[in-house]
């Protein structure tokens, strides 16, 4: 479903947060494996959804992509240029092209600044506009995101949650970015307001030729906006798939469970569904389970899952999943599976050998 040239290419990205201890000289005793050998590509004009539960590393991955966090290893290319290790100055133009929107519109706006200033700051900081021209641009932006331009001089606390998120979007748009990374942009908002913001993001994408990386734990929202979706668990991508296929035929058991856990707002459908409820909690990212990280909670896990890390296997449907016992695949798909070129380095080459017995539970 690639729409254009690759905009962002992430390969084998690792981000570890060391845990240090020691008397005088602190040494690393352990590390939080927040992002553990992740590769993904985002094309121009495309929206990539990133889903997973808290602690899966999705937010860390975003911050490592835009170099807010220095990756431990791996590479991030923006339009073919390596940006890991660039100096502050060299990053400057790239930072203009990549903007972020955050979850909490309350916390991410400076309460002492006026809205006009908040939105105009990126423009004046980069020396792109000043004086009356700045004001005009900001008011155009405000109008575009559905804020009243005459509220230019108000403070953030005078706005509702949905309007504050619009302020955040206007600020991100000010520099005409190519890519917006939205980290849970609607999860703090009410349902009726969520729909407004998602529709706005949708419109802006067409109007400004934007690409999005859209991070959320709400799978309904992610599917609505995304072209492709990557599912993360404990720092690794366990499945990546075109959005439409993922929801019908999830391959990785974790994707199955994740989708199955979301209740359907329809009592009749809900009454007949037998959701797959996972046991237990997500293990600690300090000491993740060996081989396949999901084997401790997976209803289909066998011996091999705790001994051999499955590679990211590509299927002809355009999906890729790291699992020895893939769901929703037929023998033809299994036969045609290949190891993805960007499969994690620690993974083996053991492709799934056969279609599995019927899933124990279906969505």
């Amino acid at each position, binding site marked *: 479903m690639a729409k254009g040239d690759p905009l962002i290419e992430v390969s084998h990205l690792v981000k570890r*947060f060391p845990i240090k*201890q020691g008397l*005088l000289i602190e040494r690393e005793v352990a590390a*939080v494996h927040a992002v553990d050998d992740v590769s993904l590509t985002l094309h121009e004009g495309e929206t990539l959804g990133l889903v997973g539960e808290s*602690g899966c*590393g999705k937010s860390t991955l975003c911050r490592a992509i835009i170099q807010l966090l220095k990756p431990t290893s791996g590479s991030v290319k923006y339009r073919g240029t390596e940006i890991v290790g660039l100096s502050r100055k060299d990053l400057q133009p790239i930072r203009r092209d990549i903007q972020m929107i955050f979850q909490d519109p309350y916390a991410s706006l400076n309460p002492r600044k006026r809205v006009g200033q908040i939105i105009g700051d990126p423009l004046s900081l980069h020396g792109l506009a000043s004086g009356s021209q700045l004001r005009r641009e900001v008011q155009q932006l405000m109008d575009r995101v559905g804020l009243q331009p005459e509220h230019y001089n108000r403070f953030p606390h005078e706005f509702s949650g949905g309007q504050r998120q619009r302020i955040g979007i206007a600020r991100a748009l000010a520099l005409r970015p190519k890519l917006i990374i939205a980290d849970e942009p609607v999860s703090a908002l009410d349902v009726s307001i969520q729909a407004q913001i998602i529709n706005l993001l949708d419109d802006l994408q067409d109007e400004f030729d934007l690409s999005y990386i859209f991070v959320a734990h709400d799978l309904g929202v992610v599917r609505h906006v995304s072209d492709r979706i990557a599912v993360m668990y404990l720092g690794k991508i366990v499945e990546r798939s075109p959005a439409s296929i993922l929801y019908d035929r999830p391959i990785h058991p974790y994707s199955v469970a994740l989708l199955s856990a979301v209740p359907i707002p329809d009592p009749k459908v809900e009454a007949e569904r037998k959701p797959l409820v996972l046991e237990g909690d997500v293990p600690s*990212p300090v000491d993740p389970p060996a081989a396949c990280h999901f084997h401790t909670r997976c209803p289909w896990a066998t011996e091999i899952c705790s001994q051999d890390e499955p590679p990211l296997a590509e299927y002809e449907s355009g999906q890729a999943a790291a699992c020895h016992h893939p769901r929703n695949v037929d023998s033809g798909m299994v036969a045609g599976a290949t190891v993805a070129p960007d499969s994690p380095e620690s993974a083996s080459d053991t492709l799934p050998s056969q279609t599995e017995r019927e899933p124990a539970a279906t969505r």
Partner: protein
Amino acid sequence: MEGMGQFIVRRLIGMVVVLFAISVLVFLIFNVIPNSDPAQRIGGKNANQQLIDRINEDWGFNDPLPTQYVTMMKKTFTGDLVSYQNQRNVVDQIKKGIPVTFSLCIGAGIIWFALGVVFGYLSAIKAGRAADRALTILALIGISLPVFFLGEMLLYYVAFKAGLFPVGDYVKFSEDPLQWANHLILPWFTLAVLFIGFYSRLLRSNMLDVMEEDYVRTARAKGLPERQVRLKHVLRNSLIPIITLFGLDFGAVIGGGAILTETVFNLPGVGLYAGQSVASLDLPPLIAVTMFGAFFIVLLNTIVDIVYAYLDPRIRLGTQAAT
């Protein structure tokens, strides 16, 4: 607890570094401020140049500064340090002052902590009502009264005019405990008043914050009696920062905060000794007293950190996983 030993060792090393830095600082300051020539001080007012030269020679004041510093530190730790002003042994003087200073500070500490908590608690549970307003005004008065002013007023009106308490001086606990307390009541309150006001305000605002916490709502929803909710959930959690602050303030008071009180009430403690040494720009006692003070401040800091980890179990976790 794992890591506690390491923690203490690290703190001890830190303490040595702090003491070293402070002693160097005092030593250097003393050597650059005007009119601090030690030979002048030892020789007295009428000393001639010859005497001064000899003193400079005998006391090693002509040596380079690092040598002088090392000599002084050696003497400090062997207990041979002698005042320039009156040639008395500094360590003995401090030892003599310690019981007085401790009597003053511990008594005042108990009073300010107890009253601060009681007033703060009452103020918080009566927030917005008359009792709270009255306590607020009292606290503000307490915070804004300077020690020397309050001390002198108490001495003049309560001790001298009304004759309720002795006018200054100190009686040893071992000689007469009742007289000991009688002589200390005014100094205790003088020293405590500022802290009572400060602590009660702080506790009040902490408690008002904690009352809004979800776990307090949970405690109420469990059907606990209101008193238990207030004491076990609101007060207990609000006290954590107060107790740590108490440790720091207590260290600071022993380490020099009691100078004014001791001077006003003429209590022969370490503070009074420090005050006199400052007045006469007498280096050896100054360095020793400063290190004495710094030692207690660092010591109490360490204790506070340990107590804090005990009071708030979350601290014991150490490093938390970040996402």
